[in-house]
């Protein structure tokens, strides 16, 4: 079985400073996953531009990948249905091509990208991340994608830009779940700009070396591994840089239960259920949930001075 090594980035990436971005050091490309489906080569990780501290806290992990079949058939995608195991069937005929993503707002170079543009101009890497759902289950998924930072660098956020807002397609003809008017469609999400620029944050166009399946958010979705899964918005049509903190879908529905940050934190329970442990899909025994989903070394600095208990 494939083992993951945790990434060993010392991400001191400066807010907005483009040049200083470190290339991924140790996000290990495991297995011989071919990215043929994406039509791109796998680029080996560049060596870190900074020497790594020797007292790394993230010990190498030995967590198995979640079987692809489970990743493909256990999805929270309420635009189709609230039943996780029926999303794949209902999304079968979803049209994810042609597809454009409008990048706009407080940027110097607003641009509408076609999916091909992304695949052509950004480095597609494999990133093996834990995915922790707010419902207390988790997976380990080998994503293929590129850093959101590389896209943002191209459109150049202005100095007023503080947040990034994302929006999912809402097409009632293709998405039967939209009939549920209790939800504030379209699905939207947001990140602070420095969270968006962090090297862990990627836009994914595939998983397990294959083009992203419709039920996983084709053709392009966000992956923010240290936050609960609902932050990782699917089937994005719009990325907007804003000065104000954008709202997000689940916070709009239940502000007492879901916040803007949604950082994984075993010490802060969901008001109705415990977040201390999680059930890893494919395993029987519960695992202890890790602070920031195990990515504290990479992202804890983003929250210095903030009360972690308030970052749910």
């Amino acid at each position, binding site marked *: 079985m494939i083992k993951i090594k945790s990434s060993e980035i010392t991400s001191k990436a400066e807010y907005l400073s483009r040049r200083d971005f470190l290339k991924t050091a140790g996000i290990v490309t495991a297995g011989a996953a071919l990215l043929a489906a994406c039509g791109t080569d796998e680029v080996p990780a560049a060596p870190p531009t900074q020497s790594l501290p020797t007292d790394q806290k993230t010990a190498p992990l030995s967590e198995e990948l979640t079987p692809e*079949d*489970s990743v493909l*058939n*256990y999805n929270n995608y*309420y635009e189709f249905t*609230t039943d996780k*195991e029926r999303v794949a069937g209902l999304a079968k005929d979803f049209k994810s091509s042609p597809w454009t993503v409008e990048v706009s707002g407080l940027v110097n170079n607003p641009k509408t990208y076609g999916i091909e543009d992304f695949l052509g101009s950004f480095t597609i890497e494999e990133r093996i991340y834990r995915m922790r759902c707010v*419902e207390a*289950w988790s997976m380990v998924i080998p994503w293929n994608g590129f850093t959101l930072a590389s896209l943002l660098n191209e459109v150049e956020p202005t100095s007023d830009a503080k947040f990034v807002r994302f929006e999912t397609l809402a097409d009632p003809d293709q998405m039967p779940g939209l009939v*549920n008017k*209790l*939800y504030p469609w379209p699905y939207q999400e947001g990140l602070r700009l420095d969270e968006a620029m962090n090297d862990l944050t990627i836009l994914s166009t595939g998983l397990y070396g294959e083009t992203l399946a419709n039920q996983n958010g084709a053709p392009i979705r966000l992956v923010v591994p240290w936050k609960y899964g609902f932050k990782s918005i699917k089937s994005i049509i719009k990325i907007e840089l804003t000065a104000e903190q954008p709202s997000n879908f689940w916070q709009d*529905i*239940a502000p007492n*239960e879901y916040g803007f940050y949604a950082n994984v934190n075993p010490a802060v*329970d969901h008001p*109705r*259920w*415990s977040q*201390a*442990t999680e*059930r890893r*899909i494919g395993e*029987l*025994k*519960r695992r202890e949930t890790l602070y920031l989903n195990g990515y504290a070394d990479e992202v804890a600095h983003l929250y210095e001075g903030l009360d972690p208990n308030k970052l749910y």
Partner: protein
Amino acid sequence: MNTKKWEFTPLQIAAHLGSLIPAILIGWDISTGNFGIDPIRDFTFRTGKAALVLLLLSLACTPLNTLFKFKQVLKLRRPFGLYSFFYASVHFAIFIGLDYAFKWNLIQDALLEKRYALVGLATGLILLALTITSTIGWQRRLKKNWKKLHKLTYVAGLLAVVHYIWLVKQGVLDPWYFAAILLVLFILRLPTIKKALSSLRKRNLQRASH
């Protein structure tokens, strides 16, 4: 009554077989290794659903009799209630033994400090009390109080639905369908509704015989 006795048996047999279907399906899936993607959640859901459905079926018997003068169903209240308790026990056992593997510190956090789980526990305890006192012996011993005690079935139904509502994310409609059914069953038991229904039925019978 006696002449009709032969009719009871098929209905009762059907009720018993029907009540066992979820268990048979679960047993089948286990024996064929068909565990699904998240088996613990799956079996938790299926046993919880079965317990709830059977509880509502048990509560539906009396209104069915009121509506259609279908006395035979009254005999099904007890088996439905007992099967509901059976599934609730398995449901609880999965939670404690499989999901939390008897880790008491985790169970304390997940069960005793979360309202949906506490409400589930309260439902389970009511079902336990009703199961223990479901025998003829206890009926005799408790006399009039037995009926009162077994009115708790309503409370159990209500709490089970609340348990369900509190464990899903907002906007998930499934528990609300059960809530609607429960509400209808409640309404059908209101004395005024009951009276109106029986006079309606009598009138219909009269008209039919004319």
